């Protein structure tokens, strides 16, 4: 059913000449809602709770954009998408931004009519196995059956890895992440593979998380980030600098709690970041206080990371590569100047 509606919207987009270009910010303001494409439920990145509230690192990017545009992080329509429907939804204009643990690759950046705006999470693909199999390395997985979600870079890395190491395997590909995990749990597969962050998240959904372990090999680079359509550079800038603002806020020590105090500071870089000096926000098409809105209502990058996937969450993923550049990681945002 989903696919039918996607095709229809795509056909509609094709019919209405030039409808979706250049006016994204105005369209969103007129509509009063940001339409944000997310996953169908990946704890830590985007998943709904029992009341239908979406939370997660990817969700926070959308919340931050909504905070900057509307001064209200709840003015969002979340559109849950399977891996294989996500790009069509973005191309057709059904969503304004795709924030759905999507790996940045050259083919996606160049052939889909869309652009990546940055990296929200540096990830890599790993393997989850049952401890009872007594497998200690991914290189021992010859002849295994592997469950994977279809339409992902995971599926292609898997083929490359097994071929490169002269190992045979059987792949069973499912459309949704939940079906994939269920099939793994029921014993249809020996191995479940996805991005390492996803393995931590999905392991929580298993009946006995402690019976399963993540193998040490990380077989790929998976820089995950948001995407926007081609043809609207202003909107591209807004989404890109929303993430950079969150990173810069963390770097300068601006947090949800102290942001009002920091706004009164005399320090030149803080004045530029928080809008009391210059008109950087207005140049983006937003307001002077856009970073204050983001940090006050959503938090800086570090706060969002801890709350959703890090020490303050059930996933307990360490910052690792995702720490700031001056703290041992590779998260590095251009300066607000």
């Amino acid at each position, binding site marked *: 059913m989903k*696919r039918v509606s*996607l*095709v229809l919207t*795509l*056909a509609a*987009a*094709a*019919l209405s*000449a*030039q409808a*979706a*270009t250049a006016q994204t910010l105005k369209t969103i303001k007129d509509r009063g809602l940001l339409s944000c494409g997310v996953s169908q439920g990946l704890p830590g990145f985007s998943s709904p709770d029992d009341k239908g509230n979406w939370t997660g690192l990817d969700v926070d990017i959308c919340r931050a954009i909504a905070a900057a545009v509307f001064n209200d992080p709840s003015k969002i329509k979340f559109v849950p998408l399977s*891996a*294989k*429907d*996500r*790009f*069509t939804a973005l*191309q057709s204009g059904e969503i304004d931004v795709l924030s759905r643990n999507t790996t940045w690759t050259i*083919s*996606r950046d160049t*052939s*889909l*009519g869309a652009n990546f705006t940055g990296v929200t999470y540096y990830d890599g693909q790993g393997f989850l196995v049952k401890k009872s*199999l007594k497998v200690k390395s991914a290189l021992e*997985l*010859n*002849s*295994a*059956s592997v*469950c994977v979600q*279809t*339409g*992902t870079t995971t*599926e*292609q890395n*898997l*083929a*490359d890895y097994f*071929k490169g190491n002269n190992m045979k*395997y*059987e*792949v*069973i*590909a*499912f*459309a949704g992440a939940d*079906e*994939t995990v269920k*099939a793994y749990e*029921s*014993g*249809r597969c*020996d191995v479940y593979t996805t991005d390492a962050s996803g393995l931590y998240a999905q392991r929580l959904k298993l009946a006995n998380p402690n019976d399963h372990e993540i193998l040490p090999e990380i077989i790929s680079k998976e820089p995950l980030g948001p995407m926007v*359509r*081609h*043809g609207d550079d202003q909107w591209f800038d807004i989404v890109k600098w929303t993430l950079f603002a969150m990173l810069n806020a963390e770097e300068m020590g601006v947090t949800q709690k102290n942001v009002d105090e920091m706004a009164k500071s005399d320090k030149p870089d803080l004045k530029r970041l928080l809008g009391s000096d210059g008109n950087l926000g207005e140049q983006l098409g937003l307001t002077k206080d856009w970073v204050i809105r983001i940090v006050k209502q959503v938090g800086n990058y570090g706060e969002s990371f801890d709350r959703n996937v890090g020490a303050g969450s059930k996933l307990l993923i360490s910052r690792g590569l995702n720490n700031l550049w001056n703290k041992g990681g590779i998260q590095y945002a251009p300066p607000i100047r």
Partner: protein
Amino acid sequence: MAIEARSPPSQFVFRLRRALGGRAGWNGVVFQILFVAALAWLAFEIVENARANLAAQRITSGFGFLTNNAGFDVSQALISYSGSDSYLRVFFVGLLNTLVVAVVGIFFATILGFMVALGRLSPNWLLSRIAGGYVELIRNLPPLFQILFWYKAVLSALPNPRQSYSFFDWFFLSNRGLVIPKAVGSAGLYPFLVAVAVAVVAAFLLRRHARKELFDKGRKVTIWPYVLGVLVGLPLMAMLIFGTPCTLEFPALRGFNFAGGSRVIPEFVALTLALSTYTAAFIAEIVRAGIMSVHKGQMEAGSSLGLSRGQTLRLIVVPQAMRVILPPLTNQYLNLTKNSSLAVAIGYPDLVSVFAGTALSQTGQAIEIISITMGVYLLISLITSAIMSLYGWRLDRSMSR
């Protein structure tokens, strides 16, 4: 068959025809040509507009991607396939997987459907109630639910490969599917196949001869000993002269799974099982309606000619019922084929799953891939309809002879 006088169309039909334009005069023809031209122009505009917009947004379009490397693997491929093959080959892999489910599903659905229909018509109270209960239960549950049910049932009932059920160490049943010995052709394969073909043709000619004798001279010729002799004897002779046609490759547990042999994956079993049982419920009702549409006088006429009950059914009732059964039966075959696209829910690699799913997502070329997929389903359905029409036409001809 009695010929009924055709009654003139009722007032209602007459008015309806006039409201819909009546028979076209000269004006009508001009309007019809203009209308078709407008439709063609609209279609052209849609395609052209889509193309221009895709180009403006720098979305790749065209069919060049079909020769690119697919770079992903598929769990069941009837033709040799690996990740370094092209998207075109992925398309054929998916198409064959869809077709094999359709063909096997139609085969079992037809047999089961006829059996349930005959059960429902049976004078045996228990049998007819069981058949009735089957129809009411199965046809009222959504097919997707049934597919998921069978998949869960198949998977949860079966052990892992290391504890698989083994039959004579030839067949192994586990949650990875049914593994059977694989026939690998050897030196005697081609002589054997030729012998089988010759035997089948000979058996067919014998049957034709026997029918001709029966119809022309009223003589009943017993041919089955000869048929059996030819069918068994010829291949046996070929085997004795040229050696065995094939050797068996036995499966063995190696690592996580079985190596060697052929395997029927559980996704295929669950999907085919669910679709056959689901469609069989509808076919049963169609067959029952068809048989009941034959006047009971035909049965009586048969027995008064001295035919047995079985002969009457086979020679008189069923051929007449088939004329009623065929058109809705074709619909069910088409439904089964189209429902096979629900495979994506349980990870069976059918056309929709691997081509309109994975390939679409990797290339992002939705318009091209969805167009190809829709075209293929249309083609499969039209071919199925054509085959059924041909069968119906032959049936009609043989009955009016």
